[in-house]
């Protein structure tokens, strides 16, 4: 009963999206308010139907209804409840359902909070959203139905891939999708603006918070995925430049560019065509990621079961959505004329440089990801592109980026004064030089690479620059403290958001530098009682215990006691698990962190003489990568609470009410 209910909800949702795509658009073209207003209730209905369908699938998982094929393939009665729930989106069909559900949540948000939007823009944007939803619903119903029944129903399911049974990964996909799908808002508004032929400050003010929501979610999602890879894959690494990771990173890069270029549209009424293009490209890259992961075009460690029939459908969807919007852009783009003029040395110029670097970075990642495909097609041989390529190309792009990030916020609009900016950043320059020299002297002796000193210097420069800009705006220590306090209160939240986000990037850069330069790795066979010293920590293997029973696995657990200079620090319990269904081994690393570095232990195979292969690492500054990402997200969220998003866009509303008066 319940699966059929879900299926009906999907079918009805398909028809609702069809209505929502056509009627409001026709209404907007003909200037008919009643037709345009259809979009709002339709968006609400779409959300209610998607929530019903998703709830139906969730209930099949929670009750382990093995008459549903999808549940059989991905669940098992022994699985803890958390993973029964996360199993809903841990597979292709369920994740597509979540995708459309999130799309409908955003559509509902426009419908509910978009009261002050010009009706034409709102109707067109909701119509574009519905077209996307229609395509994906058709995809689900025709190629990936999550509600397909099996008869006879098996007694138990096949279980979920044990690697995915992890709290970090349980919530990684929903955040990623909140990000990917969130960019559909910027996309829909961009298409609506192209149709109307008008992009102005009010438009940018509407698009920016949605882009910010998507960006925060995507940042968090990527950080969670990276954290998961770090502690479960057991290699001590946190980023592998795998095609699927790249698929999430490309929209992040272009989304970050969009976030910055929409500031220019809002404040300076220029860079319009470019911003529209970025909105289209960002969402297209999200779709491209979906295509790459699900079509089998590229191989990756964590792609879904590849199915060419699905690949053809997603490619068709990509062609319609991206191709259609790019043609619209090609035709209408030239009519979007920019207003404000600026010199290269201005805040606009700096933001443009940010955009160029970010887009080049996204393009580079795209090229690296697809290069094996190009090479194969052009008969250049079978190649795989790995971290060396990405590191060699990516780092040179990010260095100027970080350097300008500290400078740009201090530049004034239209025409900046670089000498004045460097004057205000004196402290930053001093701190950077001190850190570079100190790092080099401290680590120079034991093969500490010179570039690592510069990496930390770069992080310092950016961090101090971000703090200095904030101090500058509140006139810290330059005016009486009461005035500073007053300025602190009056400073827009978006300014705090920017300071936090930029400081977060600085922390991430420091973390990346530390992990790349000074990771210590020791691999050896240890017998109980053996001691291995890693970065000043003595790790003693006290013993191992076999046959530990988990909810759906058996584990071998090792016990390390860790001392430093004879004083006890902590105990580490890495595990090697064998899951029952499906039978697959996983490693569970034990990590002790002091927030400056991680002590990381993995237990491997027995050598047959009572010894075990152990891999012990000291990963300096790695926690900063994740802490920095969280700081960035907090910055985004703080910026979202800025007053100007709550009060909306007065200018456009005034104009709209005049229009209403005419009608």
């Amino acid at each position, binding site marked *: 009963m319940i699966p059929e209910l879900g299926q009906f909800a999907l079918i009805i949702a398909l028809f609702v999206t069809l209505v929502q795509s056509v009627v409001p658009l026709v209404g907007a073209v003909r200037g008919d308010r009643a037709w345009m207003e259809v979009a709002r209730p339709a968006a609400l209905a779409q959300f209610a139907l998607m929530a019903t369908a998703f709830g139906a699938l969730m209930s099949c998982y929670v009750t382990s209804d093995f008459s549903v094929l999808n549940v059989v393939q991905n669940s098992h009665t022994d699985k803890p409840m958390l993973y029964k729930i996360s199993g809903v989106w841990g597979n292709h069909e369920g994740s597509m359902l979540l995708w459309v559900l999130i799309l409908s949540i955003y559509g509902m948000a426009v419908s509910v909070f978009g009261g002050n939007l010009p009706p034409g823009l709102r109707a067109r944007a909701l119509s574009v959203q519905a077209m996307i939803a229609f395509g994906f619903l058709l995809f689900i119903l025709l190629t990936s139905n999550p509600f397909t029944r099996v008869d006879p129903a098996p007694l138990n399911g096949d279980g979920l891939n044990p690697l995915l049974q992890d709290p970090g990964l349980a919530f990684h996909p929903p955040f990623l999708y909140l990000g990917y799908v969130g960019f559909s808002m910027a996309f829909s508004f961009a298409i609506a603006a192209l149709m109307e032929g008008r992009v102005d400050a009010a438009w940018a003010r509407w698009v920016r918070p949605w882009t910010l929501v998507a960006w925060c979610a995507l940042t968090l999602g990527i950080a969670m995925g990276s954290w998961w890879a770090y502690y479960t894959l057991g290699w001590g690494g946190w980023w592998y430049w795998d095609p699927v990771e790249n698929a999430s990173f490309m929209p992040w890069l272009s989304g970050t560019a969009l976030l910055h270029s929409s500031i220019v549209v809002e404040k300076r009424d220029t860079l319009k065509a470019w911003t529209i293009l970025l909105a289209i490209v960002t969402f297209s890259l999200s779709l491209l990621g979906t295509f790459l992961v699900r079509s089998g075009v590229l191989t990756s460690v964590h792609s879904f079961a590849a199915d060419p029939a699905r690949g053809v459908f997603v490619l068709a969807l990509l062609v319609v959505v991206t*191709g259609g919007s790019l043609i619209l852009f090609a035709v209408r783009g030239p009519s979007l004329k920019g207003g404000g003029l600026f010199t290269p040395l201005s805040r606009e110029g700096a933001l443009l440089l940010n955009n160029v670097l970010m887009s080049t970075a996204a393009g580079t990642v795209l090229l690296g990801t*697809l290069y094996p495909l190009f090479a194969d097609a052009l008969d250049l041989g079978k190649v795989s592109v790995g971290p060396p390529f990405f590191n060699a190309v990516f780092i040179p792009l990010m260095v100027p980026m970080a350097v300008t990030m500290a400078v740009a916020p201090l530049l004034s609009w239209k025409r900046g004064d670089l000498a004045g900016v460097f004057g205000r950043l004196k402290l930053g320059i001093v701190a950077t030089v001190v850190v570079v020299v100190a790092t080099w002297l401290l680590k120079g002796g034991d093969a500490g690479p010179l570039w690592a000193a510069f990496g930390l210097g770069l992080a310092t420069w950016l961090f101090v620059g971000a703090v200095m800009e904030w101090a500058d705006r509140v006139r810290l220590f330059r005016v009486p403290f009461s005035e500073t306090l007053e300025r602190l209160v009056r400073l827009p939240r978006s300014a705090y958001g920017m300071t936090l986000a930029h400081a977060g990037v600085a922390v991430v850069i420091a973390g990346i530098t530390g992990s790349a330069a000074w990771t210590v790795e020791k691999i050896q066979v240890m017998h109980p009682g053996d001691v291995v010293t890693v970065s000043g920590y003595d790790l003693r293997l006290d013993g191992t215990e076999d046959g530990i029973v988990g909810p759906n696995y058996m584990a071998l657990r090792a016990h390390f006691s860790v001392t430093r200079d004879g004083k006890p620090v902590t105990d580490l319990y890495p595990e090697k698990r064998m899951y029952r269904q499906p039978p697959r081994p996983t490693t569970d690393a034990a990590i002790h962190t002091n927030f400056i570095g991680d002590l990381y232990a993995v237990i491997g195979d027995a050598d047959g003489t009572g010894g075990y292969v152990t891999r012990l690492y000291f990963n300096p500054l790695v926690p900063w990568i994740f802490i920095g990402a969280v700081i960035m997200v907090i910055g985004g969220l703080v910026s979202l609470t800025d007053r100007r998003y709550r009060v909306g866009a007065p200018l456009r509303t005034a104009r709209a009410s005049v229009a209403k008066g005419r009608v």
Partner: protein
Amino acid sequence: MMRRWPTFLPIGVFAVLVCFFAWRLVLITRGDAPNLIPSVMIDKPAPAFDLPPLVLDRPGATGAALTGKVTLINFFSSWCIPCRAEHPLLIDLMNRSEIKGRLVLMGIDYKDKPEDGRGWLNRLSNPYEVIGMDRDGRVGIDFGVYGVPESYLIDRQGRIRYKQVGPFTPEDIQGKLLPLLAELSK
């Protein structure tokens, strides 16, 4: 002011990308697996190994047994569903009249409990002439196995000539394995 052509650039780039994707999808639908990087082991001697027998009445799998005969090494597991799908094809293959006496089918029970592997063969019948157990997957690592089933065709000189990733399909056997076998047993 703004010239027209730059706004057409994105759609041009996108069109080229789509052509590449479509080409790749066509290849995949035709059954080629262009995304697989070929095994570096092809045309190299098979790695040395010596595995204990899984069942009482058949010898274990050793590298020494490879020379002199054409051998198909099949990595399988009782817990592997695609292996189960492949199993009847292997039985059919070994029952073919043109195969009899010209091909040794060597099974390697990969990362499996011996009793499970034996139970599986008892239920489904045993087409393997020699069969070893690779409990910790060491031999699998030497061969570069990254999932079961996976099969390697070894020529009379003990060199790996063909690698099948994933289960054999009737088309694979007809179109790839049998022609190669005919060539190798000349």
